């Protein structure tokens, strides 16, 4: 902790020193608006082939420093608008240029500069990406990030664990094969490696970007299956405040024999945020509270959160961001549904809304928070550097028949240099140090250090854009010997027609990813399903080679766009639970060699004005092979078919929409024979409507409108129909 505070101070002092030295170059500023004159927030504005890029604020304003005088090539992109590529002549210290973007629902979302660590200026990346924009988040009126990301084609949440093309499966929260970053800062837990999706209130989030496929060449451990970056709202100029109220009701069970309470369950919450900023500095604070009765027995959830963010533009081209959040949860834990005789079963083989009476009183108290500081200094259009320091703390207490607790700290620092030797080439080199410390009665007291160096370069070669890079990670547990893992990646994109950035493009990439065993996986010692779970300190890192080839078409017939990718992952040393005999204990082992292959396709259509439809389909074929055994079979918790359908129609101040998700029944689950194997396909329809005028907005969401009763993991009921009304006032 002291080290992190020292690092944060060092970053602030660096910024002060850089502020004092000043900088050269001209300033380019102005606004980005649509063809009706309305400002476009969060648009990306950058000078092609340089380090210079920024995003517009909510008023559509942007500022770029360090711009060379003369003619520069400026690129502007925004979600839902056709990008603009233009040449601007700058002859003085300051120039003002306003941009107007044309509404274009088929235009692909710009690639996040955070998730790729480099600006892309309209070029498509070599690996599949997806984005949940602020508009998507608002429209869906969800309360947590995972609820919004769950609708992205190729992604499925299994009881809180994210699967990108089947990456993770379900391992009871003990790890994640997907890395979460918040504004580029890794946020997977220091002890279990999992993700706290409620760390940030959804009202604090501007967008979510998802990298599908191995991202370890830039991000290291946990990015084996992909990366999810959450971009928090920036601090705009002037005074701003935002108030959000939400209230809802859970449906009763659809069958009288499953009734478990006399009145419907309710949920509600409030979020408040306020910010002030000017051209030099700004700050924002937010807090909120939520309560939910839950949709089943013993399912109460109380949640409080607060967050803050400051920005300081110490001098033109130097920006310091400090952000943090703290969330407190106390929630009941319905560990498993009631099976015959384990509660008042009312003559039923199982009661999915009720719990086993022996699990009465199970709950978890959870506290988590982070603080992060980042500095970016653009020394010239060709050269910039960036550094960060962060501290993430998670603290849980599980209250069951026995009480278990764990405190995990994850400290992280990273520094990188970005260079653009010429307009067709970019180079990125960096280093990262992560230190995790755990104190727990089930994981013990341990530390894990990860040291890494990485480099990546992108080069225009004729019509193609080629990228290549590698990262070398060294891991040490409890100060022991180092384990080294190399993660190379190469990729290429090739435009297929002459429509520039709006045209079709082929992409291909191959990369190696890895995930270091978490401290929880190595040292957990507890009891589960009546078995003793014993530690395995000798676990090796999981590794995987991932290959992808994909194509994005240009607009077809003026109202369609297709993106399709074939992916193939060969994984080694996956960590999964194994039942040991004759000791009858469970231990996590590197037991599986696995293959995940499939096709991921998305069609976006705008068949009539104001109607946007999407269809996403993922076919996933998995195979596992136990070490030293020829037994094969599918990986657990991976549905073969995933389908998402969406439609949104807007007219005036009103908009309506619907989403449908289908996931086929998983062919295999873990520990079959020890748990209730009952499972069904997922068929969930969400309906929504919204009305907004000026600063006021109302949103109605009917999630799981058909009250389809299903489960994603054994003995755990998924959410029933929930009707939620959200009111937002923003000033």
């Amino acid at each position, binding site marked *: 902790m002291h080290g992190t505070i020292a690092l944060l101070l060092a970053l602030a002092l660096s910024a002060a020193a850089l502020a004092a030295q000043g900088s050269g170059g001209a300033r380019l500023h102005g606004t980005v608006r649509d063809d009706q004159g309305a400002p476009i927030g969060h648009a990306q504005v950058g000078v092609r082939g340089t380090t210079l890029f920024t995003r517009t604020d909510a008023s559509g304003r942007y500022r770029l420093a360090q711009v060379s005088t003369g003619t520069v090539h400026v690129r502007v992109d925004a979600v839902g608008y056709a990008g603009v590529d233009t040449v601007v002549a700058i002859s003085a210290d300051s120039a003002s240029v306003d941009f107007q973007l044309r509404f274009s629902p088929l235009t692909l979302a710009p690639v996040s500069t955070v998730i790729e660590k480099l600006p892309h200026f309209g070029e498509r990346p070599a690996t599949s990406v997806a984005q949940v924009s602020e508009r998507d988040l608002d429209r869906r009126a969800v309360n947590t990030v995972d609820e919004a990301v769950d609708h992205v084609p190729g992604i499925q949440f299994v009881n809180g664990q994210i699967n990108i093309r089947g990456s993770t499966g379900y391992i009871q929260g003990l790890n994640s094969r997907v890395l979460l970053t918040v504004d580029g800062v890794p946020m997977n837990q220091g002890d279990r490696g999992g993700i706290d999706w409620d760390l940030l209130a959804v009202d604090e989030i501007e967008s979510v970007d998802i990298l599908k496929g191995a991202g370890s060449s830039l991000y290291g451990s946990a990015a084996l299956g992909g990366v999810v970056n959450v971009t928090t709202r920036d601090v705009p100029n002037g005074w701003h405040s935002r108030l959000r109220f939400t209230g809802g009701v859970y449906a009763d069970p659809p069958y009288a024999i499953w009734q478990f309470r006399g009145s419907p369950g309710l949920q509600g919450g409030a979020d408040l945020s306020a910010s002030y900023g000017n051209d030099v500095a700004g700050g924002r604070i937010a807090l909120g509270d939520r309560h939910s009765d839950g949709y089943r027995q013993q399912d109460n959830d109380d949640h409080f959160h607060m967050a803050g963010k400051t920005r300081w533009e110490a001098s033109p081209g130097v920006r310091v961001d400090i952000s943090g959040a703290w969330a407190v949860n106390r929630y009941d834990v319905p560990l498993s549904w009631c099976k015959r005789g384990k509660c008042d079963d009312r003559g039923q083989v199982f009661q999915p809304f009720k719990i086993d009476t022996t699990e009465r009183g199970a709950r978890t108290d959870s506290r988590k928070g982070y603080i992060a500081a980042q500095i970016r200094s653009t020394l010239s259009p060709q050269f910039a550097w960036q550094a960060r320091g962060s501290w993430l703390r998670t603290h849980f207490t599980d209250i069951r028949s026995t009480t278990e607790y764990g405190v995990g700290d994850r400290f992280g620092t990273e520094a990188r240099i970005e260079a653009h030797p010429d307009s067709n080439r970019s180079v990125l080199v960096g280093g990262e140090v992560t230190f995790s410390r755990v104190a727990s009665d089930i994981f013990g007291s341990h530390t894990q250090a990860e040291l890494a160096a990485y480099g990546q370069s992108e080069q225009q070669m004729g019509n193609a854009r080629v990228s290549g890079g590698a990262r070398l990670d060294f891991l040490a547990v409890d100060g022991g010997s180092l384990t080294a893992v190399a993660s190379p990646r190469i990729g290429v994109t090739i435009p297929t027609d002459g429509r520039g950035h709006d045209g079709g493009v082929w992409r291909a990439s191959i990369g190696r990813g890895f995930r270091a065993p978490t401290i929880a996986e190595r040292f957990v010692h507890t009891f589960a399903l009546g078995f003793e779970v014993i530690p395995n300190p000798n676990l090796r890192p999981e590794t995987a080679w991932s290959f992808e080839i994909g194509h994005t078409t240009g607009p077809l017939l003026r109202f369609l766009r297709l993106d399709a990718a074939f992916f193939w992952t060969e994984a080694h040393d996956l960590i999964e639970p194994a039942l040991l005999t004759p000791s009858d204990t469970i231990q996590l082992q590197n037991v599986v060699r696995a293959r995940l292959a499939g096709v991921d396709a998305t069609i976006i*259509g705008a*068949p*009539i004005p104001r109607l946007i439809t999407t269809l996403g389909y993922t076919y996933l074929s998995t195979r596992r092979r136990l070490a030293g055994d020829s037994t094969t079979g599918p990986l657990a918790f991976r549905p073969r078919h995933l389908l998402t359908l969406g439609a949104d129609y807007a007219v005036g101040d009103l908009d309506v929409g619907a989403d449908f998700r289908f996931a086929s029944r998983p062919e295999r689950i873990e520990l079959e024979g020890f748990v209730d194997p009952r499972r069904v396909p997922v*068929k969930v329809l969400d309906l929504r409507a919204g009305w907004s005028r000026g600063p006021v907005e109302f949103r109605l969401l009917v999630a799981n409108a*058909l009250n389809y009763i299903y489960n994603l993991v054994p003995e755990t009921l998924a959410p029933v129909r929930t009707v939620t009304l959200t009111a937002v006032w923003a000033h």
Partner: protein
Amino acid sequence: MLRAVFRVGAVVVLIAGWVTACDGGLAPEPICARGLIGLCGTIHFRGSIPDSTDAVFVAAYLTFPQTCNDLINNRRPVIPGSVPYTDSAAAYSMALDPGTYHWVVAVWKKVGMLHVSPADTALLRVAGYYRNPADTSQPGVVTVPKGAAAGDVNFVAHLDSLRPATDFVTCTAQ
């Protein structure tokens, strides 16, 4: 033309989604076997199992028995099968003729041979019975409908407070 096809296709896809979602999902699954005509439920066991235990079975009576003869001769089924009694609860189901049953009882049996005579009561004890939900001091009444089963007939069997038949009926000879 293609736009029209796309629109129709989109509508078809949405309707197909709607229709498929209306079907399936988890549904209630009664312990009573499908097609059963009789009654079923769950017995919750309390207390420790006596060493001399041979079986625990469920029996039903159309009228409350008054004598040991009634107890043996009016029992349905005449020769019941045992239910599992080593767990804390067990599901049971029994085929019965349609009618209204005034006593559904869990009977504990000691090791020994039964002869379907009043003398059997020496080997049998009442472990528990289905109770009237409105007045749990009284036996509950269960109606087996024609062609169907009565479910949710749940009750507790106390293995450490087994009661002799004479607590319930008059026995002139054993």
